[in-house]
């Protein structure tokens, strides 16, 4: 867990030029219901097909670790996934089912026989994970990890 917090802390620092390419997205600061880019961007998307105006992706995006070297670790992958799927995850957890929750379980390494318990826990502890509409992805990850750590059946999946 410390490592994840370190990753999160790192993401709050201004990007150095050398890191800028790889670092976008490693930040865990996304908020739930962050709102929408303007419609102009949407229309524009038809011609540039870019995701948005201020992100630069390279061929190695998402394959490198957040410090720009080495390969991405599985906990970094989980952190990035939560960060990029906050709303879908919140919705799926409130229902205890859905593709995003299932993908998270896979990324988390939950074995098939424990997936039902994982889903049930996610729904039962929804309010402990998504504590408010202003919760950030970093807090969601920490909360979920805490909830898992205190569950008798799933404690072995706690990220360290």
């Amino acid at each position, binding site marked *: 867990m410390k490592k994840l917090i370190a990753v999160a802390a790192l993401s709050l620092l201004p990007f150095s030029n050398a890191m800028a390419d790889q670092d976008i997205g490693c930040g865990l600061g996304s908020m739930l*219901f962050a709102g929408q880019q303007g419609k102009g961007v949407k229309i524009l998307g038809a011609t540039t097909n870019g995701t948005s105006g201020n992100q630069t992706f390279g061929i190695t995006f998402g394959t490198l670790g957040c410090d720009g070297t080495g390969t991405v670790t599985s906990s970094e992958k989980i952190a990035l996934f939560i960060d990029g799927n906050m709303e879908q995850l919140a919705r799926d957890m409130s*229902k205890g089912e859905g593709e995003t929750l299932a993908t998270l379980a896979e990324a988390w390494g939950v074995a098939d026989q424990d997936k039902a318990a994982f889903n049930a826990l996610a729904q039962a502890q929804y309010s402990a994970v998504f504590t408010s509409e202003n919760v950030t992805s970093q807090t969601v990850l920490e909360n979920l990890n805490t909830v898992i750590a205190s569950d008798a059946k799933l404690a072995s999946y706690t990220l360290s």
Partner: protein
Amino acid sequence: MKKILFVLLIALFSAYSNAKSIEINTLATDPYWLKLGHYRPTTLGGWKSEVDSVKFFLSPKGKVSPKDELNTTINAFNGDNSLPQQTQQTRCQFPARYTWLKTKIKNNWPELNCPELQAWQKIINPKGVTLVFPTAFMNSPSSMFGHTLLRIDAKDQTRHKELLAFAVNFAAEPDGSDNAAMYALKGLIGSYPGKFSLMPYYKKVREYNDLESRDIWEYKLNLSEEQVKLILLHLWELQLATFDYFFVDENCSYQLLALLQLAKDDLNLTSSFDLQAIPSDTVAVLRNNNLLQTPNYRPAFGTKLYHYSTQMTDEQLSDARALMQGGSLNTRNYCESQLVAILEMAYEWLNFEFYDKNLNREEIAPRLAKLLLMRSKYKIASPFSKPSRPAASPEQGHGSSKITLARTHYNQQSDLTSFAYRLAYHDLLDTSAGFIPGAQISFFDIEGAIKDNGNTQLEHFYLLDAMSLAPDNRIFDSWSWNLKMGFDRQPNNDFQQGRWFTKGGYGKSIGNPNTLHGYLLAQVEFNNGDITDKLTTGVGTEAGVIWQINNSHKLALTTNIIWLVDADVDNHADLTLKWNYALSRNLSIRTELKNQRWYTSSTSAKLAIQYYF
């Protein structure tokens, strides 16, 4: 004796070097080498690469000379005149060239040893490739020209892990220092360079499925693991490449094909595109090369929302609406699964409007959070079924270009035979299988005619004829619009006279575009040309009903009346009845009865045979 030996040696040496240069000449025009360099033949018989960045070439003449580039590449891989470290770096920059050349020429090169590349390959862990095709979104026919991307499927991938796979995207790369207005303008005219990039697939699913609400089709491609590896080796090389990004050609669809064709020596996917590659063409060329498997369908946010709403009564929907507006849940005598349906619907609907209408976060986010919290208290599965896959997937749609041969009979002038060509893409009468219902975009549509009296003339030319008829229903409040510009003919006494025009309309439609569907638009029109002598402005209305009887028959009745300001006639009008009979995917018969009025009135009947390709 010495002299003879010397001559012999010279002869042998020159024979050897001749053989070598023949070998180089052949290799330099080998299709695979040309594909590696993205070379295309020029009109003057030379070559030119589509890559525009200098770094992608080792030779200064690399962009126009495949042979120079080949020689320089071989020398660099041999390590001629360079430090071992530099040689190694070049090999790792161009692993696809290295791998291919290693099997083609005599060499003592070592196996490729590139730690960064290997780490990258290990993370991606490639097994297969999927072509991802987001369809057009409602109310934006231009997005029919849309986008395609690739997904690299990992070896340990399951259905639930595909969101974590990597997507290969080709997109324009904006200049970070441009302001928003510049960005919009340059993006629209396509002046940003295009580049390949890689990102987690979920980013693209969120973007297309959720933010833009476009259905996504995913076609697994028939490629072996080894072939996928070759594609990725070349993708690695393309880190150095930028392309002039044009909207219609050299776009994402075209560039993805240029990448995919590296999978096999004899695979040629790009040569048939001289002018354009739109997503449906990409799909078609892959289908023709037997590379497509049956696609998987990912419904858009809006598609799911609409489908959920069809499973609810009016009362349930209005209870969901009240919840969305911040009211409390009216439980009536609903059972648990009905309550859950209302909560889920209220959340999805509010979330959709939050994005679609750019609502205030301060007000909406707490409501959304509350709805999810309420939903989490019910330990039952979602009562909603998932939207079913549409009967036809995009590769089953008609070709994007069309030629037409027609015969028209007029009551007031001599009959004519005409020939028409449409560059792209789909009109409301064309079979809708594989297309977005209720959306039309015709681009560069031209018709020339020979009259029975021997005269030839331009019948019509539409640069653009777009229409978007998204109907209102219980949950979506949509506007419909059209935009048409070009040339057509209007009746004046005993002949048809030309006019240039632009017209646009805005209004509403009702019904279901898959069955019976009507629209009414308010219109503004500008005319010029022979029929008016000067620029005239008009306002009026256009209305129509379109009935899709079944998969092969469509009937449309449309009418248009425009009152002209400051012109010789008060108004002009037309009434048209069209019937399209699709004989097969790419062949149809269209008949048209039309009454037009400007100075005088003319009535015509037209019979046409249309071929799509």
